């Protein structure tokens, strides 16, 4: 599938910031099943983007803008060729052994309810892969996915499960919290998902490591393993670590309001695979 992405993020500073600095995790990398044909980042106001690779192998850009700054707008645009790998990730940039992804974070610290959910799955399934599928089903059935609101960040795993609902990012916290509790390495992934029944959008899901297979994707909100409708942007220990844009004014009283706009023009996703049909 060819996926065309246009992702616009605006951060507002009220009152205007004297100086602002931001980091972007908005550049996907190629790996098996995901080939980046074209990708551009456009930031206004004008600034110098400093590229770096973070600890997890994600491409990060940092930039600073001299004030007064009222808004920063970032537009990421590109075309990506994808193939269905039934959720299995291969050839991605890996900087750590899987066991690092057993680390719980503030966002994924399991509470009693999550441990109970995980342990219940573990009694029914024995192999890691079966357990992970079991977890995905359990999280999916025990919660309802809500649409992300502007300016809202993902909530911690325990809170999301207790509420019985959360954004895709928050439900992913529940899944990776439970998986890590069962000693199965798991991580948060950000990216884009194009699906038949819902508007395409920025989205977060989970990946867990299965011995002998490697990293496998799990989308609890949709109860599926990612197909060729998914484009991976970044991986990390939780939602915070894969945030597409983080910014903070140089003064603490500044508040940033973020809005994500996502478009995936239907014309861009025609099934033009192979034969070098790379024209747009």
């Amino acid at each position, binding site marked *: 599938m060819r996926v065309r992405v246009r992702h616009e993020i605006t951060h507002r500073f009220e009152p205007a910031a004297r100086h602002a600095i931001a980091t972007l995790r908005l550049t996907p990398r190629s790996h098996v099943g995901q080939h980046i044909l074209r990708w551009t980042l456009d930031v206004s106001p004008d600034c110098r983007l400093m590229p*770096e690779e973070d600890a997890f192998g994600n491409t990060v850009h940092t930039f600073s803008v001299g004030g007064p700054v009222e808004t920063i707008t970032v537009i990421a645009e590109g075309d990506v060729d994808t193939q269905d790998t039934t959720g299995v990730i291969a050839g991605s940039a890996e900087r750590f052994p899987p066991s690092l992804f057993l680390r719980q974070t503030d966002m994924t610290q399991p509470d009693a309810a999550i441990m109970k959910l995980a342990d219940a799955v573990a009694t029914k399934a024995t192999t890691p892969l079966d357990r992970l599928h079991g977890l995905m089903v359990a999280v999916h059935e025990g919660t309802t996915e809500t649409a992300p609101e502007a300016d809202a960040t993902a909530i911690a795993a325990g809170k999301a499960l207790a509420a019985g609902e959360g954004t895709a990012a928050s439900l992913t916290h529940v899944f990776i919290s439970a998986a890590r509790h069962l000693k199965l390495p798991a991580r948060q992934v950000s990216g884009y998902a194009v699906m038949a029944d819902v508007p395409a959008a920025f989205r977060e899901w989970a990946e867990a490591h299965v011995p002998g297979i490697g990293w496998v994707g799990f989308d609890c909100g949709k109860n599926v393993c990612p197909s060729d409708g998914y484009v991976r942007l970044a991986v990390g220990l939780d939602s915070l670590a894969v945030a597409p844009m983080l910014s903070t004014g140089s003064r603490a009283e500044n508040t940033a309001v973020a809005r994500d706009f996502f478009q995936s023009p239907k014309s861009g996703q025609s099934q033009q695979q192979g034969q070098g049909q790379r024209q747009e």
Partner: protein
Amino acid sequence: MARAFDEMSSDDGSVRKAYETLSRWLTSVPHDVLDHRRKEAEYIFRRIGITFAVYGEQNAQERLIPFDIVPRIITSDEWTRLAKGLEQRVKALNLYIKDVYSKREVLRAGIVPEELVYQNPAFRPEMNGQSVPHDLYVHIAGIDIVRTDPNSFYVLEDNARTPSGVSYMLENREIMLRLFPELFSMHRVAPVENYADDLLATLRSLSPNGAHEPNVAILTPGIYNSAYYEHSFLADKLGVDLVEGRDLFVEDNVVYMRTTEGPKRLDVIYRRLDDDFLDPLAFRPDSVLGVPGLMSAYKAGNVTLTNAVGTGVADDKAVYSYMPEIIKFYLGEEPLLANVPTWRCREPDHLKYVLEHLGELVVKEVHGSGGYGMLVGPKSDKAQIEAFRAKLKHDPANFIAQPTLALSTCPTLVDEGVAPRHVDLRPFILSGSDKVRIVPGGLTRVAMKEGSLVVNSSQGGGTKDTWVLDA
């Protein structure tokens, strides 16, 4: 328990050589004179305002750390031995941290279990594959040392994050010089006053870009931090700026300080702020104490942070138990300073032993400090032990246990006169790109309560001036 080793008097009542002069002097001076001097010392401490806050107390007011006017004496031979061991240990700590964040050979060789690194809350994934200026991570270390007999020094704990207490070492000496000039004329005491020069030289040597006159600043969390006094004291002694996060900003991956004359570039930041709070864009997003973008500037190699980010991976009490192997692995040398034998409760057979001997052991939290959250078996009643047993069983990996060591004692002025009290020692080891610097001595902490083994200032411990005698 048998009587602990006293650093002044032997069992038969004779006085050890280094203490002869001091002992004679102590017996010749009437108690009320000593008491008067003690009050004078307290008055000076109050006047200069050297205080600290105790966390977890109802009204965590600032208070004075008790100061004991009887100095502790270490011979130059003993010090030479200690200093060599300290240098070796800090060298190994630096190599270990570098390895953990790069090739991880220590894990491949099976010296340290993988989970002690990857599951360690102090491990910073952000530092992985990141080179730091001059390959040094722990520029300022505080290694806690205890003594049990004339020949045995043990390392009790490594402090590789932001060790504090050096201001007390310096103030204690200053006050002793003022109050007891006659004692200094009777002894050849090695100076500690050059610590500030040594620290500044060390910090300057760590400049990331070889700047000839690097700009150095001390970054403090602010006046509410329990060690704020020390931060401002050091800035003053070093003649460098004391800054808070809001005084700094990052532009194009370079750190600047706001000044009345415009932005000034910073090269070396001696930060007394924990990793978690350094940069809201990289760590805790709710931190208002840090500097947004600082980590990017650091990763770009434009600024040196001392100590480096993520050094905590080497100084918790679980890693501590592997230090002898770590020293052998990186340096191919036998450790010059011994470790206290340590049971790792994460290992089932160790845990079993610890649970069976709770009454005899000291059990500590792996990431604890300041004497909080620990059990001193022999000093605890049944209920305390049982309560701790439950905690231990709930999360064994979070604890280690050690035998209750008979810490050495030193003569200390208490209400009843001069009496032995337990002590430890925290020397400060400075690692620069040019050399390692250690001022002779360090901070001696003393448990003021009779029989008490807990010397932490947060638990009512006091301090003493530490004299290393020149040969």
